[in-house]
């Protein structure tokens, strides 16, 4: 922990040094854009390049962000020295106040201003959010026969009721005491995860069900990664059959563009995609329950066609097929067959026959 404090102090000192030399002080910010992200096909995940930009105090377009970067750094240093943790929304409110000498300009107007700067800091100082004593907004839960020790509590995630265990933003400190499952099934929507829990899918198939509730948050991704690594369970991903669902899978598999620097800690390169696919529509007779692609869907699919990690034969075919048919298919459309169809037929059949998309 001392090391993080030192880094933060050095960060402040470096600004003072620049000022004393009469130089326009700047902060190096690693670029978090597609242009600075590379798909490493040996490792199977996204890696961050070393392109950076400079945030100058004397560039009027940067000055406000420059101040915000230092405000967040100083707040984190305070958290560490007081041995406290704060959520990123708490950080936002803790730092928000009216600027001296102005009528209504605040240090931060919106959480959208503080969130990206936290990521800037993690990258620029090479410190993880967890080490800055910041926790992400939590989302997602796990259900299934796994015994976890979290601080002084120890529990089996299949004995906590239908809600399972809500995954915290930081899972570095937990321990897996016992795992009795054959694989992890990551499910995009909470509604689908609830359906599977009700259908006793976890018990019948010896599966751990993880609901990520949209794009998988850091806590969930780190949990999946740790179970994969420590309990050696394969990871299967089940999302909507649309560009957003597929991108959730790709994030779990090889990392996101935004957090590419964390790929090594978060990504599961050998995770498998179960569905939904456009082929499912025909295979399971779901033609009547598709949705039309919107303009934004089409644009997103076209972007995905260009991502190197989607350049496999199967994925290119799948994406092009979606464009050709002009439709998307949701997980819950399977209810059109029957409520238990997904748990009794669709998933067991696909998993047994390894009908995965890779």
């Amino acid at each position, binding site marked *: 922990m001392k090391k993080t404090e030192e880094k*933060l*102090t050095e*960060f*402040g*000192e470096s*600004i*003072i040094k620049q*000022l*004393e030399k*009469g130089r*326009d002080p700047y902060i190096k910010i690693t670029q978090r854009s597609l242009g600075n992200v590379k798909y490493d096909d040996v490792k199977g995940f996204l890696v961050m390049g070393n392109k950076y930009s400079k945030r100058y*105090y*004397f560039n*009027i377009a940067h*000055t*406000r962000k*420059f*101040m915000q970067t*230092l*405000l967040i*750094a*100083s707040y984190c*240093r*305070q958290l560490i020295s007081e041995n406290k943790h704060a959520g990123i929304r708490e950080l936002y409110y803790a730092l928000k106040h009216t*600027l*001296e*000498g*102005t009528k209504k*300009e605040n*240090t931060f107007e919106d959480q959208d201003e503080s969130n990206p700067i936290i990521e800037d800091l993690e990258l620029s100082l090479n410190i993880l959010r967890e080490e800055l004593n910041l926790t992400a907004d939590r989302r997602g839960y796990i259900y299934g026969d796994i015994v976890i020790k979290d601080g002084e509590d120890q529990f089996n995630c299949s004995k906590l009721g239908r809600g399972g265990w809500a995954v915290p933003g930081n899972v570095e400190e937990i321990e897996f005491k016992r795992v009795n499952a054959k694989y992890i099934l990551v499910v995009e929507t909470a509604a689908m995860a609830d359906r599977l829990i009700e259908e006793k899918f976890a018990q019948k198939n010896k599966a751990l069900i993880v609901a990520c509730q949209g794009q998988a948050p850091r806590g969930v991704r780190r949990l999946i990664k740790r179970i994969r690594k420590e309990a050696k369970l394969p990871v299967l991903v089940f999302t909507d059959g649309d560009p957003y669902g597929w991108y959730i899978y790709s994030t779990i598999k090889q990392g996101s563009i935004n957090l590419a620097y964390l790929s090594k800690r978060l990504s599961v390169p050998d995770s498998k995609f179960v569905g939904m696919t456009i082929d499912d529509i025909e295979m399971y007779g779901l033609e009547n329950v598709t949705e039309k692609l919107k303009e934004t869907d089409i644009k997103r699919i076209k972007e995905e066609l260009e991502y190197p990690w989607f350049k496999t034969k199967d994925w290119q075919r799948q994406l092009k097929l979606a464009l050709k048919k002009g439709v998307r298919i949701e997980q819950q459309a399977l209810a059109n067959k029957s409520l238990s169809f997904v748990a009794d037929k669709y998933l067991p059949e696909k998993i047994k026959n390894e009908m995965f998309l890779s």
Partner: protein
Amino acid sequence: MKTANDLFKEFKILSVSEFFKKNADMLGYTGKIRSMTILVHEMVTNALDACEEAHILPEIRVEIDHRGDSHYEISVEDNATGIPLKFIPDVFGKMLAGSKAHRNMQSRGQQGIGVSGAVMYSQVTTGQPAVIISSTGEEMWEVKMNLDLQKNAGKIIEKNKINDNGWRGTKIVIEAKDVTYNKSKYSPYNYLRMSSIANPHARIEFIEPDGTKILFPRSSKTLPKSPKIMKLHPRGMSTDDLLVMAKNCRARKLGSFLRSELARVSRKKAEEIERVSGVSLDKNVSRLTWNDAERVVNAFKKIDFMAPSSEGLIPIGEENIIKGLSLINPEFSVAITRAPKTYRGGIPFIIEVGLAYGGKSEPGIEIIRYANRSPLVFDQGGCVINEAVKSIDWRRYRVNLESTPLTVFVNVTSTHIPYTSAGKQAIAMEEEIFNEVRFGIMETCRGLKRYMDSKRRAYRKKQRIDSLLKYAPETSKAISRLTGRDTDKVKNLFIKLIEKKYA
């Protein structure tokens, strides 16, 4: 059936005064506000001219008193030499009195109707005589006078010699009906304000009907040079002009007449005229026929002459325009006196343009027009100056027509101003004048643009500094929390650097 004699029994020759009595509107006396301002204009012009001809820095005092419904008394006083008693009836009572008309010379008035027109207006609307008080320093008289409209002459009806108490100058008091006073753009107030701008050497005091005293101070102590009588340039002449001059000149032969009476005609040019026109230079001028004159004038058009001398034209001068515009108290002003040009082939003129930005200028462009320093208050729409201002792409010069507080000053100086009518309030669309006004405005606008740009730069710089200073306290506090250094010391580092970069 009527005979010619019957018909001509009714016919009588109108005197000039009578003609104008029947056509007062031609002199500009139309409408209550306009009539009031024209009266003040004629009287003030007369006063300024009197001072300048005597090389005296003018001190003019104008007072307007309310007498009744649409009924006012107007008095204008100057500090010139005063007028000897015997000349008073001519100065104030004779139209086309001959002091200015038919002289090829720059002057405020041109037709020589001026102040006698004001006396006439007073007489026909109130029946009251004009009161003239004048002191030459030797004797001082108070005179009541009328116009004899049929004889075109002034008639003294009462005179009193009074003690001058050391005062010298002239004061004229008239009464007028069918006039009214307000403080609009068309009012005597604005007229005097504009006069003051174009005549920074004059001190003008004005007392409004409600007793408000307004002073337009003198901002320059140099009197304008007196204009000179100039010879006519061949290019500006008509056949009729040539014949009239030929009949009244002292020369005997055409050759010597042309050389002595016209500008820019040398012996060589005279020979060229003879060759081109076929009219002998030895011809006796008094026997010049219409046909001869026409051939000579046609020859003028085919021959190249040196441009007419502009010696006789006395512009206000850039320095004095800026002094005059200082009445507006502008943030920025610029003025230009253009080189002399001619229109209609031979009439010289000089354009002057001044711009005043900010200060008392109201948002939007205000055009103030002058002819030989005399303000043009009415008929702006039909004036060449207005057209030229409208033709400018103001945005190029950072001027917004609605919101930029800008006064555009334009003075046309010429021996002959081409007015659109005898009301003398608008200058005709002469192409050469239009172009010169345009060029003058564009030239001054370049100065304005530089000022506006530097102002904008200064504003942006200030904004930049403000914004850098705004974030310094928070940034310093954060750095101090990171490093344990003193907040104020860090803040001073920022402030020092900001000052260094933007000093």
